[in-house]
Every structure is written in structure tokens, then in C-alpha cells.
């Protein structure tokens, strides 16, 4: 009887280890293929040149790399301040009222809705009204995805700031606003930055909200009010095309995109680690 219980125990524990190994296979599968195929197609040209016409080899994704950086920057400029300010309201001014409950609820809902929905809304509300696809619309769509992520992470970090620090501020006669700006935010700064970096990493890889907002562009966009190329959209278009040369470019683009995302993730982790030490 006892040995049966023990064998069941070992069988179950092995199953959990097995599940973990299975879960990691796709990670190494995807990373392995992207690195292998991506490196073969990657060259200096890739970073410096515009895409070549269909079917021709060579060319690069310079415009898509810059486009992704620009639209992520627009999204950050809009999303990060709004997210941080809203989180300050939730932790410093009003933790338990019905309004805060409503804001948290809306934050959860926004985190959960599919990103393509954001694309639809920006299309009907911005692209149709302005009359053209634009980098601004793309950045705006990414900002909407970013806001709830920033609120959640910032709120968690502000909650970690101990009450004695707040009270010390008040005890010195410092106003509430100054306590927040000069004492609480700096204390939580590293955590907030970590959250912001993870949010940036997340939106940098988003394709669906850009498909009908920024659209895509084989050339340089001359202004923010024009369609703009981005790495994810370019990868999508190349991957679903019938041309071998474009497939190579898609792998190279994926390698660049994945490197960007992983570097952001790793440095965010590193920043947080050094804080707790």
C-alpha cells in the first residue's frame, strides 16, 4: 500500500517535470529557427537599405526598423504619462472608492481585449476621419494597448512603497503633491521603469493594431501623417508572400524584433534585480 502511494507520487511528479520540458520545446524551437535563418539573411544592408521590389534579393528593412522605433516612441509619450498618473490616483488619492473600482475594472478589460479590436476602433475613429493611414494613428493604437499595462505595473510598484515613508513626508510638513513627486515616485522609480520597459517590449511586437492604422510602406514616410512601415507588419507581409527572398527577409526581421524584445525584457529584469539587492 505504501509503495503504491510512493509510486503514484513519483509518477505524478515526473509528469509535471515532463510538462515543463514540453512547454519549453517550442521556445527553443522558435528561437533556434529564428536565429539560424535570421543570421543567414542578416547583413549590414538589412539595417541601411529600403526593401527591394518583389522577387529581388538583397535590400533591407531600414524604414521598418525606424518606423517601429518612431511609433513605439509616440505610444510611450502618450501611454506612459497617462498610465503613471492614473496609477498615482489609484494608490495615493483614492484606493477604495467606486471610481477606483471602476478604473481597475476598465484597466483589466482593456488588458484583456484583443489588440486587433484597438486597430478597428482607431480605424473608424481616426483613419476614416483623417482620410488616410498614418504613423500617428499607429502610435495611438499602440498607446491604447500600453496604458493598462503601465497602470497595472505602476500601481503594484507604488503599493510597495511603505506607509512610513509617506507619513515621514507629511510629518515634515511637505504637501501631499510634493510627497508624491519628490519622495514616493523616486522610491518606486526603478520598478515603474521596469514596468514601462516591459510594456514597450510588448507593443514593439504588436502587428494586428498596426495593420489598418499605420498600414505599412515600402519607402520612407516623409511625415507622421503618412503610412509608415513597421517590423511586425513587414514580417507579416513578407512571410505570407510567395517569394523566397522575402521569406529570408522575414526571418532576418524576426531576429531583429526578437532581439529587441528580449534585450528589453532582460534589462528590465536586471534593473529590478539590482533594486532588491
Amino acid at each position, binding site marked *: 500500500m505504501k509503495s503504491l*502511494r510512493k509510486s503514484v507520487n513519483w509518477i505524478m511528479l515526473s509528469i509535471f517535470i515532463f510538462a515543463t520540458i514540453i512547454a519549453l520545446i517550442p521556445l527553443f524551437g522558435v528561437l533556434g529557427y529564428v536565429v539560424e535563418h535570421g543570421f543567414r539573411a542578416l547583413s549590414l544592408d538589412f539595417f541601411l537599405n529600403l526593401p527591394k521590389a518583389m522577387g529581388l534579393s538583397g535590400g533591407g528593412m531600414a524604414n521598418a526598423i525606424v518606423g517601429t522605433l518612431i511609433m513605439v516612441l509616440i505610444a510611450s509619450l502618450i501611454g506612459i504619462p497617462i498610465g503613471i498618473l492614473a496609477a498615482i490616483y489609484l494608490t495615493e488619492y483614492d484606493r477604495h472608492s467606486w471610481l477606483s473600482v471602476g478604473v481597475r475594472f476598465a484597466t483589466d478589460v482593456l488588458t484583456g481585449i484583443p489588440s486587433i479590436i484597438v486597430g*478597428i476602433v482607431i480605424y473608424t475613429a481616426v483613419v476614416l476621419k483623417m482620410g488616410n493611414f498614418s504613423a500617428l494613428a499607429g502610435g495611438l493604437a499602440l498607446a*491604447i494597448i500600453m496604458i493598462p499595462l503601465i497602470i497595472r505595473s505602476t500601481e503594484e510598484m507604488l503599493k510597495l512603497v511603505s506607509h512610513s515613508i509617506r507619513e515621514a513626508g507629511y510629518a515634515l510638513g511637505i504637501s501631499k503633491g510634493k510627497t508624491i513627486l519628490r519622495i514616493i515616485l523616486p522610491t518606486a522609480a526603478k520598478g515603474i521603469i521596469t514596468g514601462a520597459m516591459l510594456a514597450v*517590449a510588448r507593443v514593439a511586437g504588436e502587428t494586428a493594431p498596426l495593420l489598418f492604422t499605420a498600414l505599412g510602406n515600402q519607402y520612407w514616410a516623409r511625415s507622421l501623417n503618412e503610412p509608415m512601415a513597421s517590423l511586425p507588419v513587414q*514580417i507579416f507581409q513578407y512571410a505570407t508572400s510567395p517569394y523566397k527572398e522575402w521569406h529570408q527577409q522575414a526571418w532576418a526581421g524576426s531576429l531583429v524584433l526578437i532581439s529587441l524584445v528580449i534585450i528589453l525584457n532582460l534589462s528590465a529584469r536586471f534593473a529590478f534585480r539590482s533594486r532588491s539587492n
Partner: protein
Amino acid sequence: MSKKNKFKTSIGDQTLRILTLLMAISVVVLMVWMGWEMFHAARPSIQKFGFGFITGRVWDPVKEQFGALPFIYGTIVTSLIALLLAAPIGLGVAIFLNEMAISKVRTVVGFLVEMLAAIPSVVYGLWGIFVLAPWLRETVQPGLAKWLGFLPLFQGTPVGFGMLAGGLILAVMILPTIAAISREVMAAVPNMQREAALALGATKWEMIRLAVLPYAKSGIMGGIMLGLGRALGETMAVTMVIGNRPDILPSLFAPAYSMAAVIANEFTEATYDLYLSALVEIGLILFGITLILNVFARLLIWSVAQGPKGGNLV
């Protein structure tokens, strides 16, 4: 402190307070506005087709016929495949990390599982087109057809691209969500529970089964629902491997279409208003479903995170 000085600081204080309040309210406004904007844009289609939109099997933009059933079918089937695979594996990962692994392994493996969620969906799609689909076509599907071919699920020509490929890729993508939430709620189980079980002579598995899982059950359900929500709305990877054909076929090998995929593929090609409106209505349905799922999931997770509510140990 002079009166004037006090007045100054209080203006700054008020400004910050009002600014943060406005930003907080803007989040609620944003949510409501998005729903309203979509409802508004979908109204022509809602008025024209009514409930028949959901039950209609024909999607023919040339004849102005729009029925969303093929897309709803494809979305549900792929998401169910994903859940069937990702829920047990994700739970297994969570148990391994929380209850078995030493802290170094936990940090490294935990990070790797999180990286699964960080890989952009378009990269999964690329991998799906050039690695997963050929593998399914040449190895998995002939095997399944040989051994389980008596089931209608595994019949037909193995083409690789289809519901099976979509479901598999979704499984990979929602696994980290399920694992992360399960870990979170299992970490909320008080250690006293575990120690009590061990003190009674339970093996590790018995401890997990009797003390940890019952306690975390509703939270794990919440995690699975959040995973389902992600699967239903996932766009790019599915679009790239599902085959994009609005058919309703029983075989998992068959190409199909999903709600998010049809929006992604046809939105910029919608040449007249009713066509666009029909696509927005599909988006609205998706919005509604994920909203409801999210609310339920959050309630379940929240109920576990609240901690014990009395001694109902089974």
C-alpha cells in the same frame, strides 16, 4: 509658513490631484468609448442581418451576404484545441515551479516560460508557416490519420495549414498565461496547509492534490479563462496558419477561418460600407465575449487572492 506660500502649494496639489483624477477617469471613458465606437460602426450590419448574422453560414462579399458562423466555428475549435493542450501543461509547469523546483531552477525556468509570452505573435506565425505546418503535413497528420483516422476529426488530406495548426500555435501562446496565473494563486496558498498535509504523512503529490489544488482551484479556473480570452482574440499567428477558408468542416486537418483572422485579412479590402460594418460587427462580438470572460476570470482569481474564508478543508 506665510499664507501666500500655503496658497501656492495647494494650487500645485490641486493640479496634481485633478490631473491624476482625469487620467484615471480617461481609462473608463476609453473603455466605454471603444465599445460605443464599434457598436456605432457595426449598426448598419446589425440592422440588416439581425441575429442571422451569427447563424449565417455564407460569407460572400460579392453578393453582399454576410454570415459569421464559419469564423465563430473556427475560433471556437482552435481555442478549444489550445485549451485542451495548454491547460494541463500550464498547470503542470506551475506545479513544478511552485512546489518542486529549487529556487535557481525556478528563476531560470520561470523566466524562460515568460519568454514564451514575450515572443511576438507574428514570429510565431512565421515559424508556423515554415516549420510547424510542414511538420504537421509530413509527420503528424499522416500518423494521426493512420491510427485515429476512423474519427471524423482526423480525416482528409493532410495540408498542414488548418485548425490543428492554429490550435497548436495558440496552445503555445496561452500556456504562459495559464502557468503564470496558476503560479500566482498557488503561491497564495498558505504554507500551513502544505505543512499540515505533510505532517499527516502525505506524499508530495498527495499534498498538492489535497492541500494546494482544492484551495487554488477557482483561481486556476480563472487563469484558464484568461488564457481562453487570449486564444479567442489572438490574430496574427492564427491568420498565418489556419488556411483562411470560411468553411465549416469536422476535420481538424481542414483549413478554416477565425474571427480575428477575417478582420485582419479583409478590413483594408472592404470596398463598401456594409462590408466594413459586418467586419466591425465580428469585432464587436469578439469584444463582448472577451469582456465577459475577463470579468468572470478576474472574479475567480480575486476570490483566491483574498485568502482563506474559513475552515472548509475537504
